[in-house]
Each structure stands twice: as C-alpha cells, then as structure tokens.
C-alpha cells in the first residue's frame, strides 16, 4: 500500500517531468534551430550581398568602360570561391534568366536540388531556400538580383554549405536530449528519495496500525513530530485510548446485558424452580407432621428426619444450581465439556419441560473434545435456546427437542438444538438476532436473548445460524472452535 502510493507519486511526477522537460526541450531546440538557421541565412545573405555588390560594381564599371569586359567576372568568382569555402557553388544569370557565369559545369547547380524546390532564376527578388542537394548535401541557396532600382544586370544565386550547421544542430539535439534525460533522472531520483523520507514515518505509522490489537492495546512507539504526520500519530494514540475506554465500557455493558438476560431467564424458570422446591417442602412438611404425631417413636423420627434432610439437600442443590447460573462472572475461558454444560442447563429446566410435555432427545458425541470457552456464557446461550424452544411448544401441548453435539475433526464442535415448535415466520427470520426483537407477548421476553447469544458465540469465534419453518419447528446450529477465539 505504502510502496504503491510512493510508486504512484513517483510515476506521476516522473511522467509529468518527462512531458514538461520534453516540451521545454522541444521548444528550446526549435527556437535554437530557428536562430541558428536564421543566423546562417543572414550570414549567407550578408556574404551574398557583399559579393553581389562587388559583382554589381564590376558590371557597372564594365558598362561604363572602366573595366575590361573579358574575364573579369570569372576571375572575381574564382577568387571569391577560393576564399570562401562555405560557398559550394555560384551561378549568375543575365536579365533574361540565362546562365551568364557559373562556378562549375558539373551537375552541381540549382537544378540539382533533388525533390526540394530551389529558387527560380530571374525572379527579380532577394530570397533564400534550404534543401538537400544530391551532390552537395544540405544547401542554403540565396538569390540576389543584381539590380539598382529598376535597372537590372541579372541575378546572382549562391549555394552555401549547410552541413556544418546541421552537424551543430545534431550536437545541440543530443546535448539537449542528454541534459533532459539527466535532468529527469536526477529530479525523479530526488523525488524518490524525498518521498521516501517523507513517507518513512507514515510507513511506521501504517505498521503500527497493522499491528494494532484491540485485546492488547499498547502505547504507540513513534514520536509525534510537529508535522502533519506527527499530528496523525498523536491522534492515533488518542484514538487508541478512546477505543480502549469504549471497549471497556462496551464489555461492561455487554456483561450487564448478559447478566440481565440471565436473570430474565431465571424469571422465566421461576415457576419450575418453585415447583421443584415445593415438592421437597411438602415432603418435609409431611415428615414434620409425622414426627409431631409420634415424637417418641425414635426410629420413625429418625427416618423422617433423614427424609427431611434429603428434601433439604434437594432444595439446596436447586438453589445452588440457580445461584451458579445467576452469578455474575468475568469472562473466563477454560477447557470444558459441552455435553456436561448442556446437562446442567437441562437440570434447571426439568420441571418446565416435563410440565409442557416436552421430550428431550439427546444425541451427544461421547468423545467430544474439550471446548475452550467460558462455561457460564455457553450455558447462557443453551439456556436461551432451550427456553425459546420450550416457549415455542407451549401452545402445541408437547413436542420434542433434539440436542446434538459433534466435532467435525477440523477443530470445530457443532451443537444443534432443534425443536418441533411453532417455528419462525420467514419475514422475521432476518431479525431474530437484532437486539430487542421479540414476537412474544409483553413481559414474556426482553428481545435480547438471541442477540446476546449471537454476541457470546461470536466472542468465542463461532457462528450461530437458524433455520425455521412455521409450524414445523426451528433449528439453531452453533459452531465453535475447539481452541476458542483467536
């Protein structure tokens, strides 16, 4: 993630740099090319004008009889070409456009322009043109009319060697290209190192965030600097503290809800428990009555006292079970036997189940592995599910609850509680785990039972699912990892 961000920034800036550098380089190159060529053109025109002025003087002097007519121009051209190596050829046209003098009779004159268009002779205007000649390579041709106002003596065309200028352009191109590449590489490397430096602390923060564990919150090791990342680190630390507080509050609230729900379950057990206690009490009362009738019959008194003691033990056991169920515990994960915990819950429900003519069919795996979980919380879940099943069969005048336990050999224990009760409407099925959702009459349920059960199972790293068909029954399937939540 971090690397990707850095790479993206460098890639984006790199491309931006390349594009900008290329644009600037291209503009510079073409500006310089334009300047160099314009300089060449002006130089060529200056040389051509100077020579044309000299030739024109010669022509005028010849016309005025001040110079000999024969050989003068040829000598001038010969001397000029000898001293100006950049001039590759020279042609002078008369005023009718016919060649009057030329520097060479090889195929080296303007007609040799290849595909390019050379300057037309006798156009009567000063002009320049650059083209590639078959014989001379790149040529800058100048055309100058040998003319004073409307008096014309012809036209002078000169071909200037442009290969050195082109070689200079080539060197310029590679220089600019090299500098541009160097610039882009340097700047990209600089950006890379700069971003690397900037994101180093960000990277450490990301690592801290990755290692963040809600169950084991430790103070951030990073020092909070004064920059934006420092503010981020400081806020992260504050967020961790707030999370820790919130989590503690949540756990407390959850524990209270669990306990409240547990007490609510006890309320729902009240009639059953009362009946359970009532029976031994009646027995005890009968024993006391018999003792009162025959107080001197010591063997009988002894027997009745034994029966009363038995009844008291029974009551004590029931009360102990109730107290055990209702006692508030901190979450404590131990290795426990799931089947035994189910039996404990069933013992609290005996009266309620038998009163409603509910048959319990147990299908326990005998060698079920020990489950690492909090037995009190697991009991609460089982109690919730069994009470719900019993409630669903209250109007059905009996039914069956199938309780199945099994391990899948892959580290999970499965618990299934299936009843033949009234079932759940399919429209309500998605809401049954929502807090405060209940279909029971007012006062008969808090609407927190299944929500609490879901929370307990998830806190153990397990899952709870429900399948139900109205009037056919409901099945809750719980899967718990043997090693508990990770």
């Amino acid at each position, binding site marked *: 993630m971090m690397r990707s961000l850095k790479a993206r920034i460098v890639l984006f800036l790199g491309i931006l740099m390349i594009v900008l550098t290329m644009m600037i380089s291209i503009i510079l190159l073409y500006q310089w090319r334009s300047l160099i*060529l314009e300089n060449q053109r002006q130089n060529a025109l200056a040389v051509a004008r100077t020579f044309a002025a000299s030739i024109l003087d010669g022509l005028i002097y010849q016309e005025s009889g001040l110079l000999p007519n024969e050989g003068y121009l040829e000598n001038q051209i010969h001397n000029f070409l000898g001293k100006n190596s950049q001039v590759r050829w020279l042609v002078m046209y008369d005023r009718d456009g016919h060649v009057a003098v030329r520097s060479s009779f090889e195929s080296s004159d303007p007609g040799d322009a290849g595909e390019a268009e050379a300057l037309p002779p006798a156009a009567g205007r000063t002009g320049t*043109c*650059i083209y590639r000649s078959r014989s001379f390579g790149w040529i800058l041709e100048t055309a100058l009319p040998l003319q*004073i106002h409307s008096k*014309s003596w012809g036209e002078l065309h000169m071909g200037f060697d442009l290969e050195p200028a082109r070689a200079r352009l080539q060197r310029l191109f590679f220089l600019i*290209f090299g500098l541009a590449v160097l610039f882009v590489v340097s700047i990209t490397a600089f950006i890379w190192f700069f971003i690397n430096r900037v994101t180093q602390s960000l990277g450490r923060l990301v690592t801290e965030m990755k290692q963040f564990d809600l169950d084991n919150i430790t103070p951030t090791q990073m020092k909070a600097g004064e920059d934006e990342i420092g503010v981020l680190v400081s806020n992260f630390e504050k967020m961790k503290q707030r999370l820790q507080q919130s989590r503690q509050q949540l756990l407390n609230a959850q524990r209270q809800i669990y306990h409240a729900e547990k007490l609510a379950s006890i309320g729902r057990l009240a009639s059953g428990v009362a009946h359970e206690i009532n029976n031994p009490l009646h027995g005890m009362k009968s024993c006391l009555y018999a003792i009162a009738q025959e107080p001197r019959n010591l063997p009988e008194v002894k027997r009745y006292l034994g029966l009363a003691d038995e009844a008291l033990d029974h009551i004590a056991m029931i009360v102990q079970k109730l107290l055990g169920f209702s006692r508030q515990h901190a979450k404590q994960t131990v290795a426990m036997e799931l089947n035994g915990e189910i039996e404990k819950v069933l013992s609290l429900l005996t009266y309620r189940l038998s009163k409603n003519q509910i048959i319990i069919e147990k299908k326990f795996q005998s060698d079920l592995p020990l489950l690492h979980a909090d037995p009190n919380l697991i009991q609460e879940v089982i109690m919730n599910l069994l009470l719900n099943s019993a409630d669903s069969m209250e109007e059905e005048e009996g039914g069956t609850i199938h309780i199945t336990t099994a391990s899948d050999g892959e580290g999970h224990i499965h618990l299934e509680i299936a009843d033949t009760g009234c079932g759940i409407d399919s429209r309500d099925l998605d809401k049954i785990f929502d807090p405060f959702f209940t279909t029971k009459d007012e006062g008969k349920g808090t609407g927190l039972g299944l929500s609490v059960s879901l929370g307990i199972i998830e806190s153990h790293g397990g899952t709870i699912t429900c399948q139900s068909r109205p009037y056919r029954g409901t099945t809750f399937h719980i899967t718990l990892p043997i090693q508990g939540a990770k």
Partner: protein
Amino acid sequence: MKSRIALILLILIFFLALTLLVYRNFMDITTAPDTVFPPAAPLAAAGGRDTVHVGVISRFSPNLIYEGYQPIMDYLSRETGIIFALKLSSSYEETIAQLDQGQIQSAFLGTYLYLKARRDHPIRCILKPLNSQLQPYFHSMVITRDDSPIRSISDLAGKRLALPSALSFSGNWLLGYELQRHGLKVSDLDSVRYFGFHHTVVYQVLLGRFDAGVVKDRVAAEFTGKGIRVIAVSREIPGSPIIVRRDLDPLITEAMVKALLRIDARRPDHRALVRDWDPEFAWGFVPAEESDYDQVDAIFAALEKEPRR
C-alpha cells in the same frame, strides 16, 4: 510488479519513439523558397526608339550614380510615358562627347563643365536643383580631418591638397579663385592631385594621405561628424544643371521639365518619392536660364586669362 515494469517500459518506449520522431523532424531543415524583398518595379527597357538616354558626369562612382540617379529615371519614365535610361561615362569629357555624338540626349552636368561646354556644344540648361534650404545654389567646401591643425585656407601652405575632377567647380574654385584671395599660390602647396570622384577626395583626407580636400556641400554633409571638418565654404554657386541637346524634341523637354518641377520637397508624399534620389536632386528643381550662370562664368573666364602659378 511485472505490470508496473511493463507500464514503465511502455512509457519509456513511447517517449523514445517520440524523441526519434522529434529528431527526424528537427534535423529536416528544408524550407520553402522565401522572399526577403519583393521584386522591384518592372525593368525599364533598355534601348528603343522612344528611349531618352541621359548622361551623368562621373562625379561619383558608377554604382553610386545608379543608386542616386536611376530612381530619377524611373520617375521620369513613369510620369512622362517616355523611357529614360542612364548612360554613364568614364570621365567628364566623355559625357560631352556622348552629347556630341547623340548617344545621350540629356545630361546631368556639373556647373563648371556646363560653363565650358555651352560655349562650343549645342546644349541648353533646362533645370537646376534646389538645395536643402530650397535655394538653387550649392557650395564647394574645403575639408580637413577633425584632428588637423589646418584652420583656414591660409594654413594650406606646404600642405597636400586632394581635388575632384579638374572639370568640376570644386576642382577649380580653390586653386583658381580662393587661394589667390588668401595670398597663396598653387606653388605654395606641397602637392595637388585630382581624383575621379568627390567621395574619393574625402577618403583620401580621412586616410591622411592628403591634408585637405575640396568637395561639394552634399558630399561634405555625408561625412560631417564622421571625422572631417569644414574650414572654408564657397559663395553660392548656381546648382549643377540638367541640360538637353538643343535638337531634342521640345515635347520631351517639356515633359521632363514639367515632371521634375512637380517635385515639392515640402510634401510628405514627395519626400517619400525622392528618398532614394541623389541628395543633390532630392529637394526639387527650378527652371534654369543661361544667364543664371553668367556671373560665375565671368569669374572663371577672367581667371583663365591669368594662368595659375
């Protein structure tokens, strides 16, 4: 990772291809023919029955004469419908000979040459030029280098003197008239040499080969502030006349006169028109009469009777 490398490679290939494209375009320096200056006005036909050949005495180098006089020919041709063509000569005498032989029908003569030629040749003056003060006069001027100790004509004793043509006014004024007035003789000078052109006289003085020289005011004005100093100025001399052969068709003469008299240097459009003309003729003309030159003629005639010493 691989896709990232592929992306970077793709980008690099793209930029390399772009660079190659730019390189090819950059190195192709072909340009279409361009025009620095458009063609001049249509060329005047040289020769033909309707052509009036106009001579110019060789007071300047031939190219300078073309530069300054060809626009006048173009103007006359345009205004009169008659073709006027320049015909140069290698000397003052040759221009007179050309007139005699009918090779030229009109000419720009110097004042001194005209005074000599009108005595023996069938010519007449028709126009004389105005100077920058719009007066039909010119001056000859004695020049020295800026750093020269010569302050007046009296200081010329023992000095080297450069003059234009011996048939020019400037070539005769100092030696034939002004030296005498300052109590000097030609023999008091170290040396005297004539040059073909007025400009040559200036260059000789500037180069220090001669201590002083005499040129027309229009040439001296060209070099004012460029290393020369004027130490003496002649009296007002009637401007160098435009002459015609006496047998020239009067209609042509009249057309010439009318066209040139129309030049009014005070009008901006005419200033633009005469911009390239020789400065001596760029201020317009007035009609010239034979009698305008009589006074100067009388002075030189008197001096001719008294040989120089």
